[in-house]
């Protein structure tokens, strides 16, 4: 485990643990408090398992009032609070602090209201992303953002991280699909932003809170909009003999006026790894491969598939396969979704990065990643949400080799710096968390960061909510850890990633 600088520990508070627990027992039921080391250990990390820290206490409030009372108590006693949804975050956003109360929202697990007339679902934050779609799919509706961890990640966590998915280009991320929230601020104030209307008046506090990584408030209720399922969905699997051809094809598809529902790209290393893993029927001789998914009415999809095929051929595609049925379409995706475990098969350890770049810079960035790979002598496989420019390089290494983790981290930081240099950003969907906070100054000036910190202080003056996350502590661009997986042992190995 690499060392991570976190806010100064309040030793005095830790010595008063018994009092804290006794006071919490006055607010919530005893069985909803975990304070023994053996009980808190399972909560010592989220899906960025390179970092571990047991919290002082873990609490499981059952309703908004309890959350409000806990926060008001913590505010009064100056106790740090780390909110946690399902713990599937990849940037350490729910990493506890030794002197913090870990506030778990897993008991907020009910769908409160399905409102077809207003095309929305009101849910408690602990409800999983996928179960929202499952609750409405019999009526032909679905919830659009689909992070790959959707079977386990919670909708509250999705709001906190502004989660994306593979359909973001056409359907947006969480922020574009959220209508309202109920939140609790650190002083215990319960407030609603938005509701069942489109937009809300005044400052867009809903927009501010989305993606704020648990630093501004605790989410206790979420209202999301649901969409009608398209009539037809088809996917094309296209192979290219060079990365550049694949990259140009992506740009040409967009430039021709087509917005695919999803457009994914993989390099040769990942094509082989995933095809070995799930036998998806990928073009193994190709240097790069695209999955282009199109949706709409029947004849619209056929028309678009034909146009995409033409563009692919113009860009010297080496193979094109069109899904003939739903089973085959899902098979196309199966390999892509197995990218993580497939990499686990190829190397003892890997790190997953998460930068976004302008689509047209793909070839340039991949070339640079290739150069860095040689420089650091570490192999890398690349998955790319080509539609929205979100790049996930997977750096493979062996943690048992001396300094290899450190080397990997430097490699990762260089990739993200390259993303920013070509006009992209540090993180597309995993969040900053503790993972990328020291890289923030690569993207933002001191003024930019100070403005954000001022907002944090305006809503949480004593910086008690999730401190040590998102903003640099070291105040220098140090390299820190990424998503670290040893021998395929992710925190939740059965959950698909990115």
């Amino acid at each position, binding site marked *: 485990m690499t060392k991570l600088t976190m806010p100064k520990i309040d030793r005095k508070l830790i010595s008063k643990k018994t009092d804290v627990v006794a006071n919490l027992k006055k607010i919530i039921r005893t069985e909803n408090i975990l304070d023994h080391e053996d009980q808190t250990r399972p909560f010592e990390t989220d899906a960025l398992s390179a970092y571990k820290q047991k919290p002082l206490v873990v609490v499981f409030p059952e309703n908004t009032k309890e959350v409000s009372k806990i926060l008001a108590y913590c505010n009064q006693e100056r106790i740090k609070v780390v909110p946690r949804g399902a713990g599937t975050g990849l940037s350490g956003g729910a990493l506890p602090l030794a002197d913090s109360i870990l506030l778990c929202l897993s008991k907020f697990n009910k769908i409160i209201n399905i409102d077809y007339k*207003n*095309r929305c679902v009101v849910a408690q934050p602990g409800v999983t992303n996928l179960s929202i779609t499952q609750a409405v799919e019999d009526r*032909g509706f679905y919830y659009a953002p689909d992070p790959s961890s959707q079977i386990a990640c919670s909708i509250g966590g999705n709001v906190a991280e*502004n989660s994306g998915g593979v359909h973001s*280009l056409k359907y*947006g*991320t969480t*922020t*574009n699909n959220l209508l309202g929230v109920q939140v609790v*601020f650190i002083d215990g*104030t319960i*407030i609603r932003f938005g*509701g*069942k*209307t*489109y*937009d809300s008046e*005044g*400052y*867009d*506090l809903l*927009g*501010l809170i*989305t*993606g704020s990584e648990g630093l501004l408030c605790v989410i206790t209720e979420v209202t999301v909009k649901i969409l*009608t399922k398209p009539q037809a969905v088809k996917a094309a699997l296209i192979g290219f003999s060079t990365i550049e051809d694949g990259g140009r094809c992506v740009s040409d598809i967009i*430039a021709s*006026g*087509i*917005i695919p529902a999803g457009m994914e790209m993989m390099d040769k290393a990942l094509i082989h790894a995933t095809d070995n893993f799930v036998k998806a029927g990928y073009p193994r001789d190709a240097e790069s491969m695209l999955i282009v998914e199109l949706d*709409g*009415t*029947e*004849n*619209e999809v056929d*028309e678009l598939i034909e146009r995409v095929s033409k563009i692919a051929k113009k860009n010297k595609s080496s193979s094109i396969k069109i899904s003939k049925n739903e089973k085959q379409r899902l098979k196309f995706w199966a390999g892509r979704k197995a990218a993580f475990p497939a990499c686990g098969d190829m190397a003892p350890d890997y790190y997953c990065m998460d930068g*976004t*770049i*302008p*689509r*047209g810079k793909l070839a340039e960035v991949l070339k640079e990643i290739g150069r860095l790979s040689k420089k650091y002598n570490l192999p890398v496989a690349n998955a790319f949400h080509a539609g*929205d*420019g979100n790049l996930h390089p997977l750096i493979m290494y062996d943690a048992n080799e001396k300094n290899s983790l450190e080397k990997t981290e430097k490699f990762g930081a260089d990739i993200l710096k390259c993303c920013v240099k070509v*006009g992209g*950003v*540090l993180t*597309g969907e*995993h969040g*900053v968390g503790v993972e990328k906070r020291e890289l923030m100054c690569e*993207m*933002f*000036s001191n*003024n*930019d*960061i100070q*403005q*954000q910190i001022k907002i944090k*202080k*305006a*809503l949480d003056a004593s910086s008690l909510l999730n401190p040590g996350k998102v903003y640099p502590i070291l105040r220098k661009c140090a390299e820190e850890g990424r998503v670290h997986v040893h021998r395929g042992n992710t925190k939740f190995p059965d959950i698909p990633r990115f």
Partner: protein
Amino acid sequence: MSIEETQNFPTFQDSDSIEYPKNEKEVSNFIRKFYKSNIPIELVGSGSKKKIGKPLQCSKTLNLSKLNGIVEYLPEELYIKIKASTSIKQIEEELKKNKQQLAFEPIDFGYLLNGKSDYGTAAGQVACNISGPRRFKVGSVRDHVLGFRGVNGKGEIIKSGGVVVKNVTGYDLSKLICGSYGTLVALTEITFKVLPAPEESKTLIIHNQKIESATHLLEKAISSSNDISGAIFLPKEPEVPGCVMNIEKTFKLNDLKHEGSITAIRIEGSKNSINQRIKNLINELKIINFNISILETHQSEIFWNKVKSLEFFSFSKNSILRIVIPPSECVKLIYQLSNKYKYYLDWGGALMWMEAFELSEEMFESIRKKVVKLGGYVTMIKNSDYLPHVEEVFTINRDRFNVSQNIKKSFDPKRILNPGKMYTGI
């Protein structure tokens, strides 16, 4: 000069009171200076939406109109970066060359506020965050701002976001500045997400429906998989004194009959797809025997341009309100308001534009109460000569006000940027 014009006229300012910064650095220098000397300032672009919100009493005006021009437009990357006061017209013309558009449909407030078309500037659209008929499908202005640069109330140049759609690096301040009416930052540069313009558009019109059946049809159409992009109900104007009967005059289209109310559904896309979807809609809505007509592309585009520019309110001397409510509640609200208003429903019933005759402050507050109770909000977009001033133009509650005030302080600690434009004390 009407009362409202007098109210908005900068009577407190001398001739040297308007500054015209030429670039971001100068904007920063001016605001830094005003911050030091505690001088409140009014931010102005082209002035097209100046009348929305409360009139300001500032001794200085920062006219940002010189910050205009396209910085970078990459059609295949689906973004355009522009200086903040670039006119919407110029942006749309540029996008049109590549068959692209601002999908949120910027609203033309010119007819309503000044009697002739005036889309204003990019910053104006962002500051107001009011979007056109396609909103329920593609999102509003705030969903199309990828990033911005601007100057806060201390004169500091800040930025947020970028040029890509998937970005979770830091707080999403691009959302926060949308709809902030220039009270948080003076915008200097904006990056918009752009999308391909649809090849064609057609409009299915169902005539002479009552509000109950019209909203039912619109709801069914939006909930269908036919991917519609416009859903309005335009009832016949009420025959009350003060109401200018100009719907028929505004919508003079050869294929549009004027037989009672108009329920209109827009379908956009490729020709084949549109035809198939119209066929589906007619079947699914079971309207084959209804009085319907179809507007082909050219007329359809004119129709929706007139809708989004609120042209049928252009001669109004009355108060114009914008009400946003959950779509399921709009019929209830109409019942509660009785028939004393001219209105039209957009977004399938989730948005109501209303012209209120002889509206008093008490009546406005009573409407607000009803709307809030139904889960919505109301904005006074245009004051009338009859009611030139209202206490609260926008809707807010105490808790949200407190949070908003803290946010305001974090950007503009001395309250020098458009003070009081939105709320007293912000």
